[in-house]
């Protein structure tokens, strides 16, 4: 009998504990007549078959985020910064409300630009999480126009959409998964950036792009783990009442 706790733990990441234990048991049973080489080959193939989507989706999301920020966002941003002095929807005397609103929407938009390609590749277009992410991104992305009234409106709509999603039972769980992923990504990127600023404080302006790249890669990788875990926990299991045994 093989001792395979690390192999089983790795499989657990992609298949869940119960499924991973059953798969390892099946492979162990089959390997009794086929040998160790077959066991490890079959294990590697199973791991790739079950787990390829997550790393591939992560890479596609990182690449597409770079593309969108280089090619699409500059098109939206083709306005003068003097627009910030306009009153917008909140008026000129509510600057603090506007700043909170804009920051929230900009953070959401940046996260959603990463999240949409990831969830689309990882979970498919028909998944509720993908559909919710797509809807929120469409609402959030006009914030990059940098026109105050558009940014204000985008912020109000995104908060309304989040609240509505949390109220409606059909969208509540996808919204919880998305919110937890967003909070993880934001917290991880901010923490990582704070640490790197400390490390490169002498030359931070030279290393700023590299730091941002590293921070986003680490932050979004952690967010992906949270997203996959929560999706498996909250969204993949159909209710027992829906599974009628024939």
């Amino acid at each position, binding site marked *: 009998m093989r001792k395979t706790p690390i192999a089983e733990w790795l499989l657990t990441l992609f*298949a869940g504990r119960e499924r991973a234990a*059953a798969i390892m*048991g099946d492979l162990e049973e*089959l390997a009794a007549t086929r040998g160790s080489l077959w066991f490890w080959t*079959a294990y590697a193939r199973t791991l790739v078959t*079950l787990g390829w989507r997550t790393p591939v989706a992560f890479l596609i999301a990182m690449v597409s985020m770079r593309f969108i920020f280089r090619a699409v966002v500059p098109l939206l941003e083709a306005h003068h910064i003097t627009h910030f002095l306009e009153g917008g929807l909140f008026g000129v005397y509510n600057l603090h409300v506007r700043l909170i609103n804009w920051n929230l929407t900009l953070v959401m938009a940046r996260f959603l630009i990463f999240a949409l390609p990831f969830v689309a590749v990882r979970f498919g277009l028909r998944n509720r999480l993908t559909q919710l992410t797509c809807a929120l991104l469409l609402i959030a992305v006009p914030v990059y126009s940098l026109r105050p009234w558009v940014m204000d409106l985008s912020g109000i709509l995104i908060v309304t959409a989040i609240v509505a999603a949390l109220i409606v039972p059909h969208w509540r769980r996808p919204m919880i998964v998305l919110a937890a992923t967003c909070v993880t990504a934001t917290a991880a990127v901010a923490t990582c950036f704070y640490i790197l600023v400390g490390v490169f404080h002498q030359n931070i302006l030279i290393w700023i792009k590299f730091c941002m790249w590293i921070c986003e890669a680490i932050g979004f990788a952690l967010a992906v783990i949270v997203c996959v875990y929560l999706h498996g926990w909250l969204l993949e299991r*159909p209710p027992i009442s829906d599974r009628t045994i024939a």
Partner: protein
Amino acid sequence: MNPERTLGEFEQIVLLAVLRLGDQAYGVTILDEIAAKTGRNPAPGALYTTLHRMEDKGLVTFRDGSPTPERGGRAKRFVIVTREGRNALASAQSAYRSLLQGLDLLDAKLFGGRAPHLSILRHGFGDAYA
């Protein structure tokens, strides 16, 4: 839930194998049954991916067995076809049957003048159509 689920070919093969095995259907026996009846040797990973997908669709469910020493103390996970799974399979099989109706698969004209080898019928279409 959608009552009319479409099933892929491998999903149908797995569901049929599970139904044939009854309450003894788990990973190892399903792989053996598929190999014995279709001549294919599917990779374990392909079977598990299909089973997980069908579980998510509500077509199959699982029942845990007791741990055994030959499995390193791990329990078997027996597969059970749900009513939805049975309905989806019946619907898919009925579509095949109606498409096959009136066709003679041994008729050489269908194959450009050359009759198919019998093993193609046995392994390619399964026992039901051989």
